[in-house]
């Protein structure tokens, strides 16, 4: 708590980014480290709070599984791992696109930033579509929240995450619109980094969720 409090106290309202490496150059160039993660600090507080919710959710899944091991192992096999694979790749790649979008705006290339964001949004759409297919299939089989503990968790966890994908896409779309209106540049692009950080969080959570619920 102290670290957080201190962090919240000391941070200037907006801070000039240290000179980032030149766009496109190789990494590893020695450079100064900064005290703050990219984007608005408020989004990081929110990300931490959200991650806390997911951490508790994951732990609850694992302990519920402990109580009904056979049931979890059995019903896990009814899930479609191939669709989950597509979705994982979609989120990872979309996260990567967002990294590129941030790189473009740091190079003062708003057009490139928008194109990468559009790609990321498209992949977010793929994720939502594939997930909806999965839900449609399961609901078609008569599965519901009350079917058993495994499905309670599967549906709750993935739907909670689904809503975060939606939320993340709304944020990315807003960032893209602002970029198109010319609000961002090499000097001023905290908004892009803020949206990017949230989107990476959505990706990060799925990277744990995927093996936990589908494979392990």
């Amino acid at each position: 708590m102290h670290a957080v409090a201190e962090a919240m106290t000391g941070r200037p309202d907006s801070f000039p980014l240290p000179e980032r490496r030149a766009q496109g150059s190789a990494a590893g160039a020695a450079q100064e480290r900064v005290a703050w993660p990219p984007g608005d600090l408020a989004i990081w507080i929110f990300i931490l709070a959200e991650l806390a919710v997911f951490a508790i959710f994951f732990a609850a899944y694992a302990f519920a599984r402990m109580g009904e091991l056979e049931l979890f192992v059995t019903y896990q096999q009814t899930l479609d791992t191939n669709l989950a694979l597509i979705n994982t790749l979609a989120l990872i790649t979309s996260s990567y696109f967002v990294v590129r979008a941030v790189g473009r705006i740091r190079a003062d290339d708003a057009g490139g930033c928008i194109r990468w964001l559009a790609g990321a949004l498209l992949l977010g759409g793929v994720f939502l579509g594939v997930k909806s297919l999965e839900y449609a299939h399961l609901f078609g089989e008569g599965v519901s929240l009350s079917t058993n503990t495994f499905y309670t968790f599967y549906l709750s966890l993935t739907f909670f995450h689904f809503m975060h994908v939606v939320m993340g896409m709304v944020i990315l779309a807003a960032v893209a619109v602002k970029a198109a209106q010319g609000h961002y540049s090499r000097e001023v692009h905290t908004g892009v980094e803020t949206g990017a950080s949230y989107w990476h969080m959505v990706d990060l959570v799925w990277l744990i969720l995927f093996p936990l619920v589908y494979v392990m």
Partner: protein
Amino acid sequence: MLQYKSQAVAKPYFIAAIALFIGQILFGLILGLQYVMGDFLFPEIPFNVARMVHTNLLIVWLLFGFMGAAYYLVPEEAETELHSPGLAILMFWIFLIAGALTVLGYLLVPYARLAELTGNHLWPTMGREFLEQPTITKVGIVVVALAFLYNVGMTILKGRKTVVSLVLLIGLVGLAVLFLFAFYNPENLVKDKFYWWWVVHLWVEGVWELIMGAILAFVLIKLTGVDREVIEKWLYVIIAMALITGIIGTGHHYFWIGTPEYWQWWGSIFSALEPLPFFMMTVFAFNMVNRRRRNHPNKAAMLWALGTGVMAFLGAGVWGFLHTLAPVNYYTHGSQITAAHGHMAFYGAYVMIVLTIISYAMPMLRGREAANSNRSQVVEMWSFWLMTVSMVFITLFLTGAGILQVWLQRYSDDPQPFMVVQEKIELFYWMREVAGVIFLIGLVLYVISFFVGQRQPEASAKPLPAVSPAEA
């Protein structure tokens, strides 16, 4: 000094709030005594009536406080006079008279008779905890709420729109909309309870948190001079977390009322995180004070603002978490642990936020420049500590009573009957009553603080030491 003349309508609301607060505490003391002397004041004021008055007065005076807060801060935020001060005063009297008549109804006639007199059979909504008001009173509340929202909404529409006033408005609209579920009273008991919580839970663990966040943000902007943008960012994060955890967290009331089992998971997981927004509010308050750009002469208001963060986190957050997980709640449900949580949560979050805004606004409403005299503030700060510390003790004693109760009555291999256990935890009830008396003394001091030091000059603030360029 008031920036806008129409802010003055907040004054009667605040005075009424404090008056009803006193009534609430007196009935609380009666109730506390009835726990150990069952026939105290029987048959004039039976336990169930005293409890009804204690809880209903709390809600009504907090609503007075919220409305007063809105009437005070919205003109200042919107930078314009209130849409209709006359409507605000009219609604004040309607609400006060309706509230007084309702309480008199509780006290003077048996509840069943009150139901009959007010035509409950035409549209039955009475008889449910916290929503005991006659249907006609409920209609009155809706009318007052609509007029209030219209008044405040029009003011915001015609003036500057700030995050603080918008969050406040969303909270107040939510409050009014959710109250409509008080009129829905299905035959099915499960459904009845299900929607009853939409009023009760989604008020205190949902939209009221927005109201609290907005009032706290307003007071902190004024007291610390920290940039509005910084405070607004915090407000966004806090209310987002409050809504995510609070809305699905409703599930912690759905464990044992006949709803599907998944509510045990949803309720446990999400409500376990309800302390987060309160924790953020505490960090928020202390941080803004650390980063303050000036010292405000109203030190008492600052104390309340910091106090509400801490006490809300303890009472709503920590004490709520204690019994929110389904496997724990299986044993603690409806025990004195619930009462302990209820007391500190309501005091820490909502009583203290209303007292914060009163403390901040009242000096200006009474013609001061920015703050009361030192003498008045010292008395007020004494009342802060007396009330807060005695509330901590009330909570601890009730927690002790609750743990013992759960142990003897539910958890043990050889569970004992309710009344037998009640006798065994009597000592805790006595200690709670003593702490309650001290709370009343604190409250009396609080009232006295409005009357002392009136002729003395205003307190002044020491200027901040020069700020280094790095921090500026």
